[in-house]
Every structure is written in structure tokens, then in C-alpha cells.
């Protein structure tokens, strides 16, 4: 262990700040819907707030920021292959949409 204290001990202040930040970010993402933002602006705002929130939860609340790099790699790299699944399924969805259009809307 790198420090003599048991487990993950950090000042309370960090948690309270992140907590507040999560509230603010959630309010922002709700306001995206409330103010009826549309198109690219809406999607980029939603994704930005989502990734920020997810990042803070994993890094601070789940203590990933203080773990050793071996554990970070073991947990954070495998989900990247899901990006392949997501892009394949997006392409496939578009194809299905086109064939449905060709078959039903003639």
C-alpha cells in the first residue's frame, strides 16, 4: 500500500464538491430538455454532461483516480470494444430502416 492508512481515505471536501457538481450537471442536462434545444446542439450537450457526470462518479466516488494503473487498465479498456458493437448496430439499424422503407413504402 502506498500510504499507511487503510483503503481509500480522502478529505470530505472532495466528495462534497463532486456531489454539488453532479447536481449542477444534472440540472444542466434537464434544462437541455426544458428549453427544447434541438439537433446537434442538443445531442452534443447531452453527451458532454453525461460523460462529465460518468467521469466524476467513476474517478472520485468509485476512487478509480487513486487506483493503480493496472486496475484502471483492466477495468476501463475492455468497455472500449463496446464502441465496435455500437457502431456496427448503428450501421445495421440504418440498413434495416432502408430495407423497411423499400419494402413497405413502395
Amino acid at each position: 500500500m502506498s500510504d499507511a492508512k487503510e483503503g481509500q481515505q480522502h478529505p470530505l471536501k472532495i466528495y462534497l464538491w463532486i456531489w454539488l457538481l453532479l447536481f449542477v450537471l444534472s440540472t444542466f442536462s434537464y434544462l437541455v430538455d426544458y428549453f427544447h434545444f434541438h439537433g446537434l446542439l442538443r445531442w452534443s450537450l447531452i453527451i458532454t454532461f453525461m460523460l462529465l457526470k460518468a467521469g466524476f462518479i467513476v474517478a472520485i466516488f468509485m476512487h478509480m483516480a487513486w487506483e493503480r494503473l493496472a486496475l484502471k487498465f483492466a477495468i476501463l479498456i475492455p468497455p472500449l470494444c463496446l464502441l465496435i458493437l455500437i457502431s456496427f448496430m448503428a450501421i445495421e439499424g440504418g440498413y434495416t430502416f432502408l430495407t423497411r422503407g423499400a419494402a413497405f413504402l413502395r
Partner: protein
Amino acid sequence: MAHDVQAAALPPLRQVTEDFASDKQAFSVPWGKAMMWIFLLSDTFIFTCFLTSYMNVRISTTKPWPHPSEVFSLNIGGQDIPLILIAIMTFVLITSSGTMALAVNYGYRRNRRYTVLLMVATALLGATFVSMQAFEWTKLILEGVRPWGNPWGAPQFGSAFFMITGFHGLHVSAGVIYLLTVARRVHNGFYEKRGSYETVEIAGLYWHFVDLVWVFIFAFFYLW
């Protein structure tokens, strides 16, 4: 442990090769924590599969997708407020994540009273979340949403909704039971006797993950 102190001084990438290649335990965390992380990794794949299939049916349907903003609006004081219940549920879950983070902290400080109180508060907030979800399901079912159809458009809406929120709600319900079980053991001094509060942190990992999944559901299902 002398070896770890030595390894900590190495550059980060050398640390990784040291950790994996040396004939020793790869992860310098309690085994329960490593296992919880690996379980959460597998859970990530399950939830991503659900969200990806939702994306796929939403892209491929030729019928218009119902507007979540209107479907999930509530009439309060004669006014339709969009997504208000979902927003409240989001805040309830974030609050519970905060109380859980503090519970882990007080556990390591050996403050049993605060740890128990904060864990019970977390569990209560979780139960509140599930109750609100039950209310939401009841409302939608009464309005005619079924896994095979709904009054507003693409029939896939219902199956995606019930599958994703149902599986998440199941995780929250299981988490409430899990937290109360651990809180009981904190209360009766089980971890004090064992001399380690890592179980509280492991339970915290699970709880934060449930909150994490909700962040993605909120963005992709409710806001998109």
C-alpha cells in the same frame, strides 16, 4: 510492504508491466474489491447491450418514436411539466450516491454511527427511487403502453422502456437489500471485530455503478 513502495516509484507503464508480469498478485486491492470491479465490468456489457439494442430499434423503426419529454411529463397544478418525475428520480439517485460516498469515508474513519446512518439514508433514497419508478410504470401501463405497442407511435418504445428501466430498477432494489445487510453488520460491530471496513467501500462501488448506469439511461432514453 516493501515491494509495493518500491514499485510505486516506477514510471506508470512500468508499474503495469511489473504488476502483471511479476509472479505475484496483480491487483494491489482487497480481492473482494477486484471481484466487484470485474462484476461491474460484466454488468457494463449487459447494460450496453440493452442500450445498443434500444438504439438499433429506434434507428430502424419506420414509425415515429414517442417524445419522451411528453410521455414522461406530469401535470402539476394544471400545468404539464416535461420529464419532471425523471428529473426528481435523477436527483434522488445522485443524493444517494453522495450519502454513500460519505458512508464509505466515515467507515474508514471508524465512525460506526455515521456509517450506519448514511448507509440507511442511502437505502431509503434507493427505495424512494424504486417507488417512483413503480409509479411511473403504473402510469404508463394505465395509458396503454405495452411491450408490443403504445398509443403514440413506434411499438418498440414499450419493450425498450420496460426492459431497460426494469433491469435498472432490479439493480436498485438488490442494492437496497445489499446496503441494508452491510449496514446491519457495521451496526453490530462485525467489521470492527475484523478490523477492516473495505466491505462498505465494495458495497459503495456497486451503488455508484447503479447511479452511473442511470446517467446513461437518463441521457439516451429520456433526453435523446
